[in-house]
C-alpha cells in the first residue's frame, strides 16, 4: 500500500471537521432533522483511493456512514477511532469488480456498531480486518450480503479484552440463492484477559449450493505452548504476553495503523 496519495476525512462527533480529498471522493452530509434522529454521512468512491478515516467523540454520538465503491474501483480504507459512547451504523456498498480493503483499529470505551456490507456486483470483494482493545462495553454486529455471483468476503475481527471490557462480535454472512461461486470467510478471535464475559456469534446463512464458506471463532487467552516457547527464550511472562498481544493486533494491518496500535499497546502494557 502506498501512503503518499493518502486521502483523509476527520469526523468529530457527527460532523466532518476536516478533509483532504480529491475528485474521486464525494461527501454528502445529511444532518439529523425532524424525520431522522441521526446524522448521515455519504461517501462515494469513484477513483482508486487510499483513505484514512479519523473518528473521535466528545459527547454521545449517533451516526450513519454510507460508503459506496463504484464499479471496478479499489478502496483501501483505514480507520482509527478513539473516544466513548458511539452508536454508529456503517453501510458499505460494493459494485461490480470493485475491491475494498478495510483495516480498522479502535481504542474506545462504550460502543454499539453495526456494519452492513453489500456485495452488489459480480466479483466484488472485501477484506475486512478489525482490531480493538476493549476496556468497556463493545458490541459489533456485522452482516455481509453476497447479492451477486463470485463475490468474496474475508472478515477478520480481533479483540483484546482488558479492565472492564465486555466484547461481543456477532457476524452473519448471507449467501443468497443463484449467486454461485461466492467465497465467504469469517474469522473472529477474542483474547480475554479478564473474567468478564465475551461472546462471538458466527452465523452462515447459505441458500446456494455452489459456495465456499468457512468460519472460526475463538475466545480465550494465549496457549501454554506459546507462553512456554517465549519464556524458554528468557522473556518474562509479562513480556511474552505483550509480544503476543502486539503480534495478534498487528497481524494483517498496515504500517499506518500499526503505529497507532503500537502506541496504544504501550499505553496499556508499559
Amino acid at each position, binding site marked *: 500500500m502506498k501512503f503518499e496519495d493518502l486521502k483523509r476525512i476527520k469526523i468529530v462527533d457527527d460532523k466532518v471537521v476536516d478533509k483532504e480529498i480529491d475528485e474521486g471522493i464525494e461527501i454528502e452530509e445529511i444532518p439529523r432533522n425532524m424525520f431522522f434522529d441521526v446524522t448521515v454521512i455519504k461517501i462515494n468512491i469513484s477513483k482508486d483511493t487510499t483513505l484514512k478515516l479519523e473518528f473521535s467523540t466528545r459527547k454521545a454520538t449517533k451516526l450513519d456512514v454510507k460508503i459506496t465503491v463504484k464499479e471496478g474501483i479499489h478502496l483501501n480504507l483505514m480507520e482509527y477511532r478513539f473516544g466513548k459512547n458511539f452508536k454508529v451504523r456503517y453501510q458499505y456498498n460494493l459494485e461490480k469488480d470493485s475491491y475494498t480493503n478495510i483495516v480498522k483499529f479502535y481504542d474506545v470505551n462504550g460502543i454499539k456498531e453495526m456494519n452492513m456490507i453489500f456485495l452488489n456486483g459480480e466479483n466484488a470483494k472485501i477484506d475486512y480486518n478489525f482490531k480493538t482493545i476493549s476496556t468497556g462495553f463493545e458490541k459489533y454486529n456485522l452482516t455481509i450480503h453476497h447479492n451477486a455471483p463470485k463475490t468474496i468476503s474475508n472478515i477478520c475481527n480481533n479483540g483484546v479484552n482488558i479492565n472492564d471490557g465486555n466484547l461481543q462480535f456477532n457476524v452473519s454472512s448471507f449467501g443468497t440463492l443463484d449467486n454461485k461461486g461466492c467465497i465467504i470467510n469469517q474469522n473472529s478471535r477474542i483474547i480475554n484477559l479478564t473474567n468478564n464475559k465475551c461472546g462471538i456469534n458466527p452465523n452462515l446463512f447459505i441458500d446456494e449450493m455452489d459456495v465456499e464458506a468457512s468460519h472460526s471463532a475463538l475466545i480465550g487467552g494465549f*496457549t*501454554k*505452548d*506459546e507462553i*512456554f*516457547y*517465549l*519464556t*524458554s*527464550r*528468557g*522473556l*518474562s*511472562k509479562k*513480556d*511474552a504476553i505483550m*509480544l*503476543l498481544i*502486539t*503480534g*495478534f*493486533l*498487528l*497481524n*494483517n494491518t498496515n504500517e499506518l495503523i500499526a503505529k497507532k496500535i503500537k502506541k496504544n499497546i504501550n499505553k496499556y502494557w508499559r
Partner: protein
Amino acid sequence: MNSLKINNISVKTEDKEILKDFSLEVNPGEIHVIMGPNGTGKSTLLNTIMGDSSYVITSGEIYYNDKLLNNLDTSDRANLGIFLGMQKPISLEGVSNADFLRTMVSSKEKENFNLMKFVKKLNEYQEKLKINKDMVSRSVNTGFSGGEIKKNEILEMYLLNPSLVMLDEIDSGLDVDSLKIVADNILDYYKESGCALLIITHYQKLLDYIKPTHVHIMKNGKIIKSGDSSLINDIEQLGYENLDTETNEI
C-alpha cells in the same frame, strides 16, 4: 561449574508417570546423546529441565550450576544459560521474528542491550546459517520450511549464548544440505563457547558431524544403558529391542 545434575527424578503428566527415578550428569564440554524408541520420555526430559508446566516433578531434584531448578520459572532457567532447541517450535502468527529476537536479547542483556550490536550479530549469524534475510521480517515460524524452522532455533541459540544447549530432534525435517549447515553451526558454537550439549536424535547422520562423548539409551522413562559413541553402531546393527536384552540397567 555449569553442570547439570539430575538426581532420581520422577515426572508425570496428566497422571501418567513418564520419567521414573531418572538420573544424569552433564558437565561443560561434554556432548551427551540420548536415543531410544518413540514415547520413552526423551522429550519429556528436556521439557522438564526447561520448566514446561505440563510436566510435574513428583520426586528428585534438578540442579544447574548448583542451583535447584525444580520450582524455578522457565524464563529464570533460560537466564541461567539453559537453551532448548525444540522438535516442533510453535508458530506465532503476527509476531514478527525481528521483534521476537530483539525482545529475547534485550530481556537477557537488559540495560546493556545495544541495538546496533544486536543487528550486527543477527546479520553475522544469518549468514553463517544461510538464512534468507527476509525471514526476520516474517512471523515467527509461520510459513517457514522445515529447514528454516530449525535454523531459526539455532539462530536463537547463537543470540542467547547459552552454556547448556539441549536439542530435541533438531535434525528432523532437514534435507541433507540443511542438516550439514545446522550441524556445522552447532559444532562451531560448541567449540567457541565450551558449552555442554544434550542432544536427542533418532538418526546417526547428525552424529557423523557431532561426535558425542556420552551416549545413553532410554526406555520406559529410564536410561537403560550408557556408553561412548561406539554404542551408536550397536543400536544401528541390533536395534533397541535386541540391545535391550544385552544391557544392564543403571
